[in-house]
C-alpha cells in the first residue's frame, strides 16, 4: 500500500511498474497539504486511512 500526494501519483505508478509491483494499491492525498490547517490535515489523513484500510483488506 502506498500513500502519496496527488501530485506524485504519476511518479508513484511509474515506480511501481519499474520495481515490479504494478498492482500495488494507492491511498491518494489531495495536493497541497504543506500549507493546510490542522483540521483539514486531519480530514485528509482520515480519508487516506480509509483508502488504506480498504486497499489492505480487499
Amino acid at each position, binding site marked *: 500500500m502506498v500513500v502519496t500526494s496527488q*501530485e*506524485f501519483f*504519476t511518479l508513484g505508478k*511509474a*515506480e511501481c511498474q*519499474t*520495481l515490479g509491483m504494478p498492482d500495488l494499491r494507492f491511498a491518494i492525498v489531495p495536493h497541497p497539504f504543506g500549507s493546510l490547517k490542522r483540521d483539514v490535515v486531519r480530514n485528509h489523513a482520515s480519508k487516506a486511512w480509509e483508502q488504506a484500510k480498504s486497499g489492505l483488506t480487499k
Partner: protein
Amino acid sequence: MTAQRQLEAPDSLEEINALYYERHMTDGLPIVPPTAERVGAMLKVVDRDPQELLGTMAPRWAPCTIQKVAINAVIAGCLPEYFPVVVAAVECVLQENFNLYGVQATTNPIGPCFLVNGPIRQELQMNGGYNLFGPGNRANATIGRAVRLVLLNVGGGVPGDLDRATQGWPGKYTLCFPESEEQSPWDPYSVDRGFAKGANTITLFGIGGFTNLADLHSNTAVGVLGTFCRLIAMGGGTPSGGSPLIVICPEHAEIMARDGMSKADVKKYLFENARVKPSGFTATVAEEWLGFRNRQTQVSGSNAPEFTLDSWGTMSPAPEHIQIAVGGGAGCHSALLSPSFGGVGTIVTREIIK
C-alpha cells in the same frame, strides 16, 4: 553500435526536431540528430565498452550505459573531445550520496551544477572568465546540457511528468563551468576535494538558485566579505542546510588574499557573519520561522536545541561546508549558488579519465 534501437528518421532537421519535441526527448532547444556516425565518433574518444553499465538512473531506474550517454552528448551538441568530461559528470550524478531520485522528482528547483578543474579546461577551451555562467562557450554549454538530456531521456526526468519542479530554474538547462585557477590566489577547488594539483576533475553540486554578490566599492577583505554577508543573510540564503558554493571573482579574491585571507579564513568569516536571528524580523515573520524550524526538528527526531528568537540562522551547519571557487572576468561581481536540500555530503568529485 548495436544495442540501442535505431529509428528511421524523417529527412529534414525540422521534422527530426519536431519528433524529438513531441516525444519529450529534448529540453526545448533544437537537437543534433544522433546518427550512428556521430555516436560512433563520440564513443571512439573513450576506451570504454559502449554497453558498460554506469548505473541505473532514477526515477525511471533505467540502465545508463556509455552508449546512451554518447547519444545524448551528440544530441546536446558536444564535440567528441568533451565526452570524457560528460562521462565523468554522469558518473557523478549516479553516486548514491547525490540523491538523484530526490533531485529529479522534487518540487524544489534544484538541478546539477558542474565545476571543472585541471588542464582539460584549456584543452577543451572552456570559459572560466567573462560570462562563465552565461551563454557563449560551446564546451560549458553542451557538457551541462548533455547531462540534462541524460537525466531526461534515460532517467525519465520529463518536466511536469516525473520531474515535479514547481518552477525549476534556468540552471536546469545547463550549468557547467571551469574554475579560473590561474586567477585564483589559492589552491584549485580540486585540491580542497583531496586531489593532487593539476588533476583533471569534475565536481557536482545540487543547486537551486543564484545570487549576485556585488561589491564595487570595498578595497579590504572585510569590506568585500561584509557585503557578501549582508546579501547572503538578507536574501541569498540562509538555507536549511547544505553546502553553498561561493564563486569569487578574481578581483574580490585578490583583495581577500592581499589582506592575508586563506580560503579557510573566508569560510570562517562568512559562517560567523552571514547569519540572522528571528528577533531581527517582524514578530509575524519570526513566529512563522520559529514554528517552521522547530516543527522540522520535532519531525526529524533530532536532538537539536529549540530554535528561539535569539538563535542564529546560519548559511551552513559549519564553516567547512561552505565551498569556494574562483571564476569570472574583470569586475566586482561574485556569486552565491544556493543548495536546495539534502543536507551536507551530497557533493561528488570524480577524476576525468581521457
